[in-house]
């Protein structure tokens, strides 16, 4: 598929795919914005 736009979908515990809730989006953003979860810039190709 074309990698043009990221969707905010969650695959749930029962295997169904659904839009993420606002709380879940906030939690994922917390991970993505936390520098502890970034690959070191020196290590990236």
């Amino acid at each position, binding site marked *: 598929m074309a990698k043009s736009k990221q969707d905010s979908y969650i*695959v749930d*515990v029962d295997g169904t795919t659904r839009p993420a809730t606002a709380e879940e989006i906030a939690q994922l953003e917390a991970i993505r914005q936390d520098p502890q979860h970034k690959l070191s810039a020196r290590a*990236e*190709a």
Partner: protein
Amino acid sequence: MTYPVFQAGDILNASDMNAVGLWLVKTHTIPANVASTTISAAFSADYPNYLLVFNQLDSFSGNQFVTVQLRVGSTTTTTGYYSGGYTTSAYAGSLGTSFANNASAWNTVACGTSGLGAGYMWVFNPFEAVPTGYSANYAYEGGTGQIQGYQSSSTSFDQLVLAGGSANLNGGTVKIYGAR
């Protein structure tokens, strides 16, 4: 019979079968372009430790870690993740580090946008009411790495939540084996 070589028609003796070290618990497919994916019924009282084998991991954007959070029921634990490890660039030959102190998830394996991410991760005592440990190794088109750590709570977990450390995940498989 001479364990572990079985012949067609052999009786499967309990002593032989109970000596089998790894059993496939489940295979989970990571869909394209998802913010996170939850693996249910991954851990149970059947096994103390688990081997997760990742293959064909793909990132929606950029090189990134696959982050893992532990979950039970409808509650995902979002604090108390500790880890430390080393990463390398396969092309630049440089060494990097990854350290997380009371973070919201573990950094585990990694992937880029070519779907070549692969690696493995041992998870220790996730279902026991003690802190859960892990040890991961990986390689992908952008580099390699190894990272270890633990989750500090004594919660009994039965599920995993996979997400990207900086973007959506875009595919891959995870095979979970229980280790006696």
